[in-house]
């Protein structure tokens, strides 16, 4: 606290939608206080003067999509005691990394020759390239979670990351379970911490915060199949936000075909046609 010097912090973005950095700023009521808790050395999104000396930590949005991104990522990692991956792109690769699961011919025609430095590399989250010290996942991340992180860091504590499934918060919010309505909700296998905003807003969870460590993937697949979703659908859905964090998906899908799991579903089947 006041005894110590303020922490030197940088907020940067590489390829992303800027939504995560906005999520910091959109803490409208706290933002000015928040940024005065730390010594904000860099935040190019809203600052002209940015020094990139030694940071205590860097909060970095975005995924690695070209060589320049990788260069920046490595440099920041080197200059910072801690690296915080902010948002789904940074943590799981998010929608841009879904490219791994599309046919090449779908985007080939969009490829053009670029300057060497901006040459594409396979879209990938930070931890495929460097060590990450803390994750604030989500697309967009929960703005209060960022707030809690910064407040915590000032006092030398890192908030325990969420590891419980989205369902916990969803039920606490008093929602009707969308699985019972035949909708393909990924809440049970997705790490919570978002307060189940999507379900509160009427949409099933798409899994933007990435899979939980404790997920029962096999059962989730079975549940979705029971509700009439085909395997293609299940794969597409699960891979939209966190495909790279589900490398076992195909194997589990194959394996679960032979297994009998007796679940019950008394709602109506809803095909997404």
């Amino acid at each position: 606290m006041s005894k110590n010097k303020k922490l030197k912090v940088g907020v940067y973005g590489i390829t992303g939608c800027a939504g995560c950095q906005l999520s910091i700023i959109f803490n409208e009521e706290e933002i000015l206080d928040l940024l005065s808790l730390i010594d904000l050395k860099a935040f190019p999104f809203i600052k002209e003067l940015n020094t990139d000396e030694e940071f205590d930590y860097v909060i970095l949005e975005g995924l690695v999509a070209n060589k320049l991104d990788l260069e920046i990522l490595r440099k920041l990692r080197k200059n910072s005691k801690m690296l915080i991956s902010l948002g789904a792109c940074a943590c799981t690769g998010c929608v841009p990394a879904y490219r791994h699961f599309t046919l090449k011919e779908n985007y080939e025609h969009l490829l053009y020759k670029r300057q060497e430095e901006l040459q594409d590399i396979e879209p990938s989250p930070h931890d495929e390239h460097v060590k990450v010290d803390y994750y604030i996942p989500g697309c967009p991340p929960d703005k209060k979670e960022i707030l809690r992180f910064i407040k915590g860091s000032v006092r030398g504590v890192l908030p325990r990351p969420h590891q419980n499934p989205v369902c916990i918060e969803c039920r606490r919010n008093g929602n009707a379970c969308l699985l019972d309505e035949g909708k393909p909700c990924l809440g049970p296998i997705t790490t919570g911490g978002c307060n189940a905003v999507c379900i509160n807003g009427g949409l099933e969870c798409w899994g933007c915060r990435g899979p939980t460590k404790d997920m029962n993937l096999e059962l989730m697949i079975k549940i979705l199949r029971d509700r009439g979703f085909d395997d293609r659908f299940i794969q597409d859905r699960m891979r939209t936000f966190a495909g790279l964090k589900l490398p076992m998906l195909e194997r589990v899908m194959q394996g679960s075909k032979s297994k009998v799991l007796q679940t019950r579903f008394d709602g109506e089947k809803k095909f997404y046609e």
Partner: protein
Amino acid sequence: MSKTITLNHITKIEGHARLNLKIEKGKITTCELSATEGARYFEGIVKGRRYYAAHEMTSRICGICSCAHVVAALTAIEDALGLTISEQSCRLRVLLTLAERIRSHATHLYFLALPDYLGYESALSMAPEYKPQLQSALRLMKMGNGVVKLLGGRDLHPVSAGVGGWLKLPRQEEMEETGKELLKVKKDAIATVKLFAGLRQPEFESDAEWFSLVDPNEYAVLNGKFASGKSSFGKHEYRKFIEEYHQSYSTANFVVKEDHRYFVSALARLNNNHRQLSKDAQKALKDTGLKLPSKNPYHNNLAQAIELIHCIDHAMEICKGEIKKEEMPEITPRPGRGVGAIEVPRGTLWHDYTLDERGTITDANIITPTAQNLYAMQEDIRKRMPSLLKKKREEIVLDVEKLIRNYDPCFSCSAHFLEVKWL
């Protein structure tokens, strides 16, 4: 005298861009504005996905315009499916778009643009002297975010708008409450106009033509023809007029077919539609003395400020409406093509999808405002340069940055910058 100015990371814009300027013997030999954002190929990755995934995925193109992408994608998909949405859904989508415009303009005006004029490096360092102004900004942002959250379920990448309608409707009381809140922040919008009208802007005229949607019924948001002072065309015909091409020597991405540069922005909207502004916005406009039509891109900030008032007025109007319970329609896929063109904070946004008989997306094209503005932006810099040459390096940089920021570019939207480095 030879000068090279490289702005490697242009700050206080969304996304990442750089500018290369080379001036030799008083002549500009190189002027390259380029996005350094990694390519994400959104148009490629939505291919093969079903129609209901388009807005979910493309919303991730841009955080601050996420509502815009959602609405544009939904409009295009519904167009392709031949769905008409209810009047209420339409109204709410307008509100969602306006709310986003409020927060986006407020963020841009105060956090990205204003420090340039007041001589600060960032809004944060302005805080001690300009606390009330910043608080105005934060209130406006909070308002915009609040409405987006109410309608869309969350601040960014809203979820409640779906193909054909709303997954979850706001309650009547909430709408009424929102109307009251909007009224409270109107004074902040008015103060914003005053503040920006007081800033001195250079005299300058862009060679580019302006374009925006024009809707006879209202200050265009979701409907209308794409028009400038000279020509206009319907959204389905856009391919005939806008051509995207890529030349290794050229900076062009999108040009109007007759080889005219154009820009889209709040200023373009004001040029076309200022007579449809709300009463208070018109009054504010008059008080500023801004002459329309204007081709001075430095006027865009002021135009945004004026739009703030209009958006609040229009939003309040919508909040008065009644909320009826509506079910989502049953959807049967069919093959077809659909286009969505809507006015978003930075100009006109285009989404275009082709679906097959199962509702799978077989082709997609997205044209963002910044992509349309790039060429104009760069050429404006080129045109502006000669009058700046005598100045000191820092002043040139500041002036150029101001120009760029006035366009409020959003390089995150690089869904579709074909070639990012121009020579």
